[in-house]
């Protein structure tokens, strides 16, 4: 591995640029396909104008897809980093997300009970949210490190399926542990994200005129917040991995553990740190998830975890840039399929099929391009 001087600005601007390209690219492609479908299906419906409905919904669907995409991308980082270092699918990552979400939500519920959230205007509300995200990161990160130490490290070097099965065990154990804790303390196992601040307000971007009907294209403060958090987190991770000594150590362990150990790198410490970073990102994503969907329960991490894994594989597992792209594509696809599936199929197939859609993509990618969209040759040239 050759040394190169790191230009901090470049290391911040590059991931920003990549993110922008990924978002714009996948949004344009998916929108175009959807509109094409709408045009084709237009003659089949006389009760409503499919094209118009599609267009009216489009901005909101895009925003939903992008926020979802950021969350998938952040969760996918945990899978992809651990996979890069250990070639191991950390099945329990979704549960780190869940623990982070509970930590953040509990903090906010407590603050709310103290009356601290009542008066919050935007600035203060931001502080509280950030605190909750940070707490989620601390809790999920520590949990990830503990799990690695207790359950995964003793299995390093065992046949591939052994740690995978243990990870399934960890996933189940953590779900019911949280359920037990919540039930014992609160009597029930789900919690709700307290409503506070001006996040529900909408910022009108512009107004379009559709057949004489003015349609506001607006974005919720909440969505702006989610996107902002996502950008900060992904850029920070990119910087950490590409421009710091720690990042270099992680990359060399990912490349070849034995050689890295010979070069004086403490492999166990680096693996633990990888889990810490991945877990912390997962915890942050958990709080954001709770912010977005308001309800948290012990089983909430499973499906997002599975989808984030899909995103990681879609982008090319082991690649951080790939996980960003995979997350975006999957988030957008899911939001589009949830919104339009029912309209296009005259209500025969509802939004429930969005999960099938995601798994279908996973299966197709694994079969036809297991190295992912950005895997294989492309990353080597880059």
């Amino acid at each position, binding site marked *: 591995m050759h040394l190169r001087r790191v230009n901090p600005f470049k290391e911040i601007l590059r991931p920003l640029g990549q993110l922008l390209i990924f978002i714009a690219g996948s949004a344009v492609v998916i929108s175009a396909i959807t509109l094409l479908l709408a045009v084709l299906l237009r003659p089949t419906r006389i009760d409503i104008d499919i094209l118009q409905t599609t267009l009216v919904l489009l901005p909101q669907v895009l925003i939903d897809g992008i926020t979802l995409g950021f969350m998938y991308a952040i969760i996918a980082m945990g899978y992809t980093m651990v996979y890069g270092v250990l070639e191991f699918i950390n099945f329990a990552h979704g549960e780190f997300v869940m623990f982070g979400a509970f930590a953040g939500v509990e903090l906010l519920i407590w603050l709310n009970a103290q009356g601290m959230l009542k008066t919050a205007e935007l600035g203060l509300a931001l502080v509280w949210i950030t605190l909750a995200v940070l707490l989620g990161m601390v809790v999920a990160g520590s949990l990830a490190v503990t799990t690695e130490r207790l359950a995964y490290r003793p*299995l390093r070097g065992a046949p591939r399926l*052994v740690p995978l*099965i243990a990870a*399934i065990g960890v996933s189940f*154990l953590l779900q019911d542990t949280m359920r037990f804790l919540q039930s014992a303390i609160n009597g*029930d196992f789900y919690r709700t994200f307290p409503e506070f601040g001006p996040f529900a307000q909408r910022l009108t971007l512009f107004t379009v005129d559709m057949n004489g009907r003015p349609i506001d294209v607006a974005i919720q403060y909440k969505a702006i917040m989610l996107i902002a958090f996502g950008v900060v987190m992904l850029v920070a991770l990119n910087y950490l991995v590409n421009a710091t000594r720690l990042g270099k150590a992680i990359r060399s362990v990912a490349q070849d553990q034995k050689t890295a150990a010979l070069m004086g790198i403490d492999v166990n410490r680096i693996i633990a740190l990888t889990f810490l970073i991945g877990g912390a990102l997962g915890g942050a994503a958990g709080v954001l998830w709770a912010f977005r969907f308001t309800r948290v329960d012990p089983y909430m991490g499973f499906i997002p975890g599975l989808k984030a*894994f899909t995103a990681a594989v879609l982008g090319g597992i082991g690649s951080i840039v790939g996980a960003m792209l995979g997350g975006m594509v999957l988030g957008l696809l899911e939001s589009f399929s949830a919104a339009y599936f029912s309209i296009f199929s005259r209500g025969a197939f509802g939004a429930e099929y969005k999960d099938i859609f995601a*798994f279908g993509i996973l299966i197709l990618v694994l079969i036809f391009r297991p190295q992912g969209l950005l895997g294989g*040759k492309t990353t080597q040239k880059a």
Partner: protein
Amino acid sequence: MSAQATSTNRFLQIFSGPFGALLALLYAVGVTYVLTLDPRSLLGRLLLFSALALIYFIPQRPAVKFLLGAMLVLMVVPAIGLRNPFLLEIGFQVAVFATLALGLNVVVGFAGLLDLGYIAFFAVGAYLWAFFGSQQIWHVDEPPGTFTVYATFPFAAWWFWLFIPLGILAAAGMGIILGFPVLRLRGDYLAIVTLGFGEVIRVLANNLDKPINLTNGPQGITPIQRPPLPEFLTSPELLATLSRWAGRPINANDVYGFFFYFLGLLILGFTIIIARRLDRSKLGRSWTAIREDDVAAVAMGVPLRRTKLTAFAIGAAFSGAMGVLYAANRTFVSPETFSLTASISILVMVILGGLGSIPGVVMGAAVVTLLNIDILQSLSLQLSSLRQGPDLIPLLGIPWKELPTQLDPARYQRFFFGLLLILMMIFRPEGMVPAERARLELHEEEGEAIPDAELEGDLAPDEKLAD
């Protein structure tokens, strides 16, 4: 038999020789006595299980062990079951899940392919009979919840017997359809894809109540017909005799309890024989070979894809048959039964018992099923009865009454499954009753291999090796 290896245990040596056989018989009789004193006691059921396990492990001739075991399973259980039908219900469920676990064992234990969506094949069998064995066919055009009840069924109840082989075929076909595209994937990817497939089947079962109502969605399909009982089994004379023995009125519904118990055992018996014979055949050797080293296996002429597909199809077939039986037994199926937790619980059975070990897997299935439907439930019942009383929880000093119902042990299956999986993987990956071959294997490091995608000449072996 692999029991010999474990029987070096000094405790089990007591049970060797004619005296030992007598001792085991005495234990079995003692257990029976405890059960006759209180047919409903959990302790009695656990003792019964311990007696069966003991009989398997003791150093006796297979014929002696078989005789002792058959005595307990074929005579004691039905006899006690007359007074406590729950025992038969547990026996039936153990038979069902042991068969499923044996099927998964063919896939995971013999062929080394981790399938996390195995319950889907069970669902295929169950929904097959649920659809044809109920009135669902006549409901396909009605929106859910607006059913007319008809007096007759499209297929008479005796069709059940034909649907057992059909369920086997349907599930095996499903196994092949799923296996065909995904079997070229590497082990851990295969696990995730099969998990996704299991979820897809469940989502479909949940949502295929529209546009046409095939599954009736989350409400599930009911009533599903049970196979007709032979007339002599429901004759008033027989029922009267049975009632006299049992000391309680026995009706046709109780007879069904016996019927399903024995039918379940019969299918389990067949499954054990088939799994055993396959394991010791050319096909079984091929499975082991691809699990151990797939490159060497193909180089020796073992067709990789076909061998894996056979494992998938045969594993699926076992659970397809049981699915049909299960639907008839419950007279009701809903998507809930086919959750990921169910898939994992079967995996826990296989791993707890011992990957690749037929007796181990059956024992694992018995333990997990007992834990699931008996031990945890009994604890929950105990708790709720405590909740009725005025007592305080020791140490905490809070009245039992205030303990949230959410803390019922029966709700924490996943906790126990998870713990079992982790502990087994760390401390005893070969399981309680290790297979002869796998004993050493799981502690070892895997040899380096040519990437799987390179294996078959018909795959494009392009850029794989470059990275």
